């Protein structure tokens, strides 16, 4: 009986699931209207610190290993450890700050909508009109 339950659970976990779209969101007054994967990679590695109009970029990230987080990391071809090393180098040389980590998508949405120059990501179903959508990862 136990064996059957385990097999059932294993088979359920391997059923392919449709990936939920993730959106890259920004503060409404950010001058840019879109970001490419390459732009996003530069923003998340703090290689690009300004929007096109010169405004400072403030990056928000999720603390937990949420699916939306791994989707974004995959989209920019970065592993979590690689990003953490990059942020450590930037922080230790005084060149910038690591992304600000928040606990939940709701908190991230609230921070991005209220912080000038902010950028972050959430599941598409959680987004509202308080922020600007710069890209959709499907």
């Amino acid at each position, binding site marked *: 009986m136990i064996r059957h339950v385990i097999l059932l659970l294993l088979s359920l976990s391997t059923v392919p699931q449709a990936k939920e779209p993730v959106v890259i969101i920004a503060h409404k007054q950010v001058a840019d209207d879109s970001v490419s994967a*390459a732009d996003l990679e*530069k923003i998340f590695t703090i*290689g*690009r*610190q*300004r929007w096109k109009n*010169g*405004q*400072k970029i403030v990056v928000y990230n999720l603390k937990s290993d949420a699916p939306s987080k791994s989707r974004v990391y995959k989209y920019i*071809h970065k592993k*979590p*450890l*690689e990003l*953490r*090393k990059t942020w*450590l*180098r930037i*922080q*230790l*040389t*005084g060149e910038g*700050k690591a992304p600000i980590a928040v606990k939940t998508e709701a908190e991230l949405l609230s921070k991005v909508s209220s912080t000038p120059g902010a950028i972050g990501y959430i599941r598409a179903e959680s987004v509202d009109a308080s922020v600007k959508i710069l890209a959709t990862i499907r």
Partner: protein
Amino acid sequence: MKKETSRYSSRVAVILLALACTPSPRAFCQEALEVFGFFQVNFQQFLETQRTENPAFNFSVVDENDRNSFSAQQINLFFRKELNSSFTAWLNFEFTNSFSSERNWGAFNLEEAWIKYHHSDRLKIKAGLLIPVFNNLNEVKNRMPYLPYIIRPPVYETSLSEILPLSDFVPQRAYLQVYGVQEMGSANLDYAVYVGNSEDEHINTVASGSQQTGLDTTNFLLVGTRLGMRFGRCKAGVSATYDRDNQNPSGLGDVKRYRFGADLSFSVGALTFEGETIFVQHDLDMPGISLDKRFHYGTVLCDFNERMFGYVSYNYGEDDFKFGLRDGMDAYLVGGGYRITDLLILKAQFSKISADEDDAPPDASLPVPVDFKFDATWYSVAFSVFF
């Protein structure tokens, strides 16, 4: 009475602390002051053998040194403040080798004190005391939580400064640096140009008349640059500096010195390769005398998973002028670590450095040619904390 005094002192300390932590009214239009840092504490078992011999003259000196020690290897305190969207101020204080001024242990250094003007990602200017960009490692050589090493590649290892002239290989500090990143399609072009004082031996250490300590006593300058390219997980660059080597004690004067460097690092899967080469050349027109130096290192690091890593590193250096290093010096570094959290890393390392010079020419201290052999082995464990 003593209790009263102690109570009074602690009240004063609390008040001073409270005042220090209270932001001034002007501070409200600025970002908060960020204070953070790291320390690395280690335990080392050190074995050293140094042989100086000449069988023909029946001359032989063997020094053996076997010791172990705990040490607060390095503590750095950083202060960072964004004054507005364009200007950032940065201070870096460094304490090494269990620093205690009372007991004459270790050293306390103001490593950096600069202000950065961020015009755009393409153009940034740092002014003040700074560690210049040279190859890949120089700028981060003292950031221990970022580095896998306990003992670093020799030209970046301050504890070896007594046997290896570190500042001859890489520039230690500068005072003005213009740098930035230029996007070129999917690649990035990094550049940095800097200027600073001449080397430490030219800096005044004894106050006399109008001459303060800490000031350059020459009218020479250090100038340097690095040009680099980043593409995906690959990074490469070339570096160069020009300054003058103070060879006045050896009677050669102030010799024009050029340092050339190249660096390459890339990652494939869990493996990261990092390598550098440095050539130091002098403009010295004296037959039979060369001050030139070379250093190369290559490290392969493997991140077995998010927590565990291991590495092997081979280093080779030569100094045409320095006794014992004329026939080269090899260093092997093998180590690994475990990231307990992102802020706490355990490290272990085996390091072996050996130098061997046959038939070293006589000088004032050794009047006969000698064979010199140096072997040093470290077994070290450390923990590195970022706070």
